[in-house]
């Protein structure tokens, strides 16, 4: 099964040039059949009960011409409307008659033709059947795979015909499998046996489904045992995908935890500020993304897909700015007094939430993924990695590397390290420690903003977004060891994987509880976390 994203682009390609392809194939094969699409047929296809419409579809498919193909494509694209008993294809606001192809005025009150899931499946299968003879091997392959997924005995003849002329070995193999899938429900036990055996080579969850469905009805003992044998072959092949899938979800959750915790690793880890408003700074980053999205939609709708590129620096700056203001106005008076810092930042977090609530409303706001982040890449038959998760993993790495370089290689990083390790000495050497504090704190806040920007792509953006992540963030930093960047990375990945692997076994609710218990026990045994390092918090 192609991933949604690929499928989407494929579909637009199909709609643009498949007509030509189908026309060619129809001309090649059905030139002799004089019957063409009639307006009675279009009515039978669009009105009435699903059963009757499917019968009409099969009849139309028996003698297809290019008009039939075009009409079915329009049905699949939800581009067919009816007005009274008149059936029209409407594309880009222009109506045309499906039989004559003449342009027509779109009547007032024309209604969409409603296709339910069953009808839509049948239409897609019919389109696939029409493409079995397309000159483009990729289209033939897609069509064959669709037929393999949903075998239909009424299309066996078309499949046989296509099989007879197929030259491409890859497509041919799949056509044989598709034929086997149809034969799986044959009345002849021998044919079923052969089909069950052949299908062991099609190692996809869809084939698994077909075999399982057959198994639940099969009476013949021999066929049953062959079905079971084929199923276990397929299961063995799919195991790898399942394991990798679980691993990937763990890494994906880990990357989110890492993003969420990185900022805190600076403000809490290095500077020792127990920043309860960390979550709200993420929330500000997410809202900055929302605002940038809104501006793009308003002023640059053509470049909407690029809004994230602007949103990333915007969310960083917005959160860093708020952070700088906080540090200047409140926190610098409270250094070395962790309890008061905790209370003050908690109060600030409430204030920020309420502020956003009165500015943007209490409800969640919708942040749309750019289209290049929807869908995923299909790696194995049962393993597809969603683009948005991949992008976030990459983004987390990017932030991590950027931050590491900043702290270890730049002059600012040197000052930050110097000030946090030995403030009087750094000051004696001429470092403006107060300014460095502000920079370091806004950097941590800016990174929280980046995390918010990433979170907006996978979850909800609302005033209490931060509340859902603040506990996780502290968990990661404390578990990793306060003041240690490497520890944060290990802790985030470890917690992500542990959470997801447990969830696979015990369910989401229990997994969450188990992880919390694990952390409590771990901190009891090892209060300094995975890695320990002396920072300012240790002095205080």
């Amino acid at each position, binding site marked *: 099964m192609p991933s949604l994203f690929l499928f989407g682009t494929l579909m637009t390609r199909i709609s643009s040039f498949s007509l030509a392809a189908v026309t060619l194939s129809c001309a090649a094969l059905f030139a002799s059949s004089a019957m063409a699409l009639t307006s009675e047929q279009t009515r039978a296809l669009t009105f009435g009960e699903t059963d009757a419409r499917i019968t009409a579809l099969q009849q139309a498919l028996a003698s297809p011409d290019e008009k039939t193909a075009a009409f079915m494509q329009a049905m699949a694209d939800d581009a067919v409307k009816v007005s009274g008993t008149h059936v029209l294809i409407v594309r880009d606001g222009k109506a045309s008659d499906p039989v004559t192809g003449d342009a027509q005025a779109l009547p007032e009150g024309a209604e969409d033709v409603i296709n339910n*899931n*069953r009808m839509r499946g049948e239409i897609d299968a019919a389109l696939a059947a029409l493409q079995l003879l397309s000159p483009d091997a990729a289209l033939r392959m897609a069509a064959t795979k669709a037929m393999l997924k949903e075998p239909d005995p009424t299309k066996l003849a078309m499949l046989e015909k296509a099989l007879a002329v197929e030259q491409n070995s890859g497509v041919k193999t799949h056509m044989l499998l598709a034929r086997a899938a149809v034969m799986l429900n044959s009345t002849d036990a021998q044919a079923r046996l052969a089909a069950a055996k052949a299908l062991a080579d099609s190692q996809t969850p869809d084939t698994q489904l077909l075999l399982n469905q057959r198994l639940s009805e099969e009476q013949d003992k021999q066929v049953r045992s062959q079905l079971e044998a084929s199923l276990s072959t397929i299961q063995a092949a799919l195991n790898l995908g399942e394991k990798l899938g679980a691993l990937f979800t763990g890494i994906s959750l880990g990357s989110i935890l890492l993003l969420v915790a990185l900022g805190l690793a600076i403000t809490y880890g290095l500077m020792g500020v127990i920043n309860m408003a960390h979550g709200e700074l993420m929330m500000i980053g997410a809202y900055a993304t929302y605002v940038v999205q809104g501006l793009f939609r308003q002023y640059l709708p053509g470049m909407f897909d690029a809004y994230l590129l602007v949103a990333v620096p915007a969310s960083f700056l917005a959160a860093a700015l708020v952070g700088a203001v906080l540090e200047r106005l409140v926190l610098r008076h409270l250094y070395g007094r962790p309890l008061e810092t905790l209370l003050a930042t908690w109060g600030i977090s409430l204030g920020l939430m309420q502020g956003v609530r009165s500015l943007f409303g*209490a409800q969640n706001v919708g942040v749309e993924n750019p289209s290049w982040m929807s869908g995923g890449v299909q790696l194995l038959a049962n393993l597809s990695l*969603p683009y948005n998760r991949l992008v976030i993993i990459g983004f987390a790495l990017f932030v991590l590397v950027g931050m590491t370089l900043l702290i270890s290689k730049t002059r600012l990083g040197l000052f930050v390290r110097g000030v946090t390790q030995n403030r009087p000495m750094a000051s004696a050497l001429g470092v403006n420690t107060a300014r460095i504090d502000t920079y370091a704190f806004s950097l941590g806040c800016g990174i929280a903003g980046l995390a918010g920007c990433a979170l907006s792509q996978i979850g909800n953006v609302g005033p209490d977004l931060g509340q859902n992540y603040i506990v996780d963030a502290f968990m990661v930093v404390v578990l990793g060891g306060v003041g240690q960047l490497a520890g944060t990375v290990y802790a985030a990945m470890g917690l992500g994987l542990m959470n997801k692997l447990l969830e*696979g076994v015990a*369910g989401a609710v229990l997994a969450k509880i188990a992880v919390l218990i694990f952390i409590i026990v771990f901190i009891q045994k090892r209060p300094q976390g995975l890695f320990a390092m002396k920072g300012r918090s240790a002095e205080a």
Partner: protein
Amino acid sequence: MMNRRGNLKALAAAAALSVGSFVIAPQALAADTIKVGVLHSLSGTMAISETVLKDTVLMAIDEINAKGGVLGKKLEPVVVDPASNWPLFAEKTKQLLTQDKVSVIFGCWTSVSRKSVLPVAEELNGLLFYPVQYEGEELSKNVFYTGAAPNQQAIPAVDYLMSKDGGAAKRWVLLGTDYVYPRTTNKILRAYLKSKGVKDSDIDEKYTPFGHSDYQTIVADIKKFSAGGKTAVVSTINGDSNVPFYKELGNAGLKAKDVPVVAFSVGEEELRGVDTKPLVGHLAAWNYFMSIKNPTNDEFIKKWSAYAKAHNIAGHKDKPLTNDPMEATYIGVNMWKQAVEKAKSTDVDKVIAAMAGQTFKAPSGITSKMDEKNHHLHKSVFIGEIKADGQFNVVWKTPGPVKAKPWSPFIEGNDKKPDEPVKK
């Protein structure tokens, strides 16, 4: 520096654009008003669904006041925010009943909030109108249930999925948020499915915490489960978790043709923030859809659009949407008004007596009737498929209104329970 300033300007501009009407309706100064409590979460995980119900109550009240009020008095709304915090629902109810002395409360979405309000309402003899579909198993003298009982939503939806047009599902994933409504609904559904010959091994029940946002594992599990036979998912996920769930469904390429998901808590409003193109064909079961065509509904939508524009309701002023709980809320407020007029009093006991058998022309296209005995509305059931524009195509409906069975026959011992509130 330009960059930062530009950014600030952008923030301010957008902020100015999206300032929601978060203002509580002006309190009428005249002492001679009837106070009406509005108890919906305006923040927290349920705000996505509940905020608009508050506005619906206010719209209905405005409309009634414009026609002269009730018994010659104007209605005065008292809006409180229980913030998706269940114990706070009880506190706010107490405040509404004892301090504000409201005559009636319109409120709650989740069953856990209703269960939290219930003992307070019963003790202080208050009156609650509850506008959302729920799991049944409850019948209080002090509550009128204008949403669906399980036999008015869940069971017809499962029937549809078992039918040929619905995909003839053989295996079932019952997926929900972890609290009383999904748990009870799934208990009923499990018993119902078993009565239809579905084996326990073909039912997979799963729960996630409130506000859960990472549905990767769950979607992967559904994919795996669906290889064992034609599968349908019944989702009782509530609140804003639906957004990440549907996003994940779309990204994982799980299509409605292969594994249809029918949701009981997802309507037009919940789909607002979601890219619906990958979701086309997934289903929802409700007693009202915005896409239903009839003159009453046209008028209802028109009224709501005008109200949303006039009151600058975030989101709705640009793209007004109506949904089932809004319709149920609207029916509730109007029926209460009719009952007060019939009883010629706002006294709770008199109004309860007058509610029996009240009728109201509902936007769903039927004349909705409050059952004479069991405090539930008679409702038509619709199954809708999600369209690319976030609206629903009605693909199936009951021939006429269905009477609610709050005590589901699929839970043991319910056959002996009376179909009316028991006097205590």
